[in-house]
């Protein structure tokens, strides 16, 4: 069966279960802009996980999310590897292109990317409005499929897969590693479906 496109991720219910205050200036429990990722909603066929931009960037949590998911939904080694890679790419896009609204450096080779990394670290340290934007991961499953949606809170961007050597490399990897991919909400949400 296919998942219905039911519109927005049900984070309203998730937020209602999240006791912490993510507003700028608040200490949500882990010090400045660093509350731990939190499982904020779960039932017998879905989980919702929310992370701040800061935590998503610094912890690169795809592996731990997939490992935890594997405790609930059995995943073979091949599926877990494809899922971890695709989720890592989707989270990187959600954080860097989405919530931090940064385009790729156009020039400067490796130096350009090193400078962008320094800029990202400055934004995460000094701009709570950006660093506390949320990334929401919504996982749903049936007997035959698992769908992972990653939602950011940026302005949106055109999510166009490129090829392996140029722009859109991350989306190219995601498309190669999942069975279906689609972007919604102006590029703020990417959904990846994997056959079980």
């Amino acid at each position, binding site marked *: 069966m296919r998942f219905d496109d039911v519109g927005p991720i049900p984070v309203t219910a998730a937020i209602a279960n999240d006791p912490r205050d993510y507003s700028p200036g608040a200490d949500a429990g882990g010090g400045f802009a660093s509350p731990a990722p939190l499982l904020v909603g779960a039932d017998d066929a879905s989980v919702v996980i929310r992370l701040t931009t800061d935590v998503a960037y610094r912890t*690169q949590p795809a592996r731990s999310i997939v490992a935890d998911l594997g405790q609930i939904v059995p995943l073979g080694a091949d599926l877990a590897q494809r899922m971890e890679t695709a989720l890592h790419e989707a989270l990187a896009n959600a954080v860097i292109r989405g919530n931090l609204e940064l385009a790729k450096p156009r020039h400067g080779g490796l130096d350009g*990317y*090193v400078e962008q*990394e320094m800029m990202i670290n400055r934004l995460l340290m000094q701009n709570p409005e950006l660093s506390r934007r949320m990334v929401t991961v919504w996982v749903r499953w049936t007997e035959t499929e698992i769908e992972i949606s990653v939602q950011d809170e940026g302005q949106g961007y055109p999510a166009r897969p490129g090829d392996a*050597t140029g722009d859109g490399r991350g989306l190219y990897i995601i498309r190669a590693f999942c069975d279906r991919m689609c972007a919604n909400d102006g590029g703020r949400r990417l959904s990846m479906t994997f056959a079980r």
Partner: protein
Amino acid sequence: MFNTSLSDGNALAALSGQLTFTDHGAFRDMARHLVASKAGRLTIDFGGVEFIDSAGLGMLLLLREEAGATGRPVVLRNAQGQVKRMFAVSRFDTLFVVEP
């Protein structure tokens, strides 16, 4: 994250851990070591790398451009698991010398 060594016209860097979007600075340092050498080929050993992302692939492509400017090939050696799969999906065998 990396060790470099020079021998017999080959500059070799052995990477370990992960190569992802927070590693541009360390990778640039390694790339400078390799490119500054007089070696005829620049080799990276991936035997200790267990995960690479699209940013890591991009770093390798930028190193390839720099090495290509002096006519030297980049050799990607000993990739395992997820890294080997990423190289295959990205058809890196058509861009680099990929060795087992």
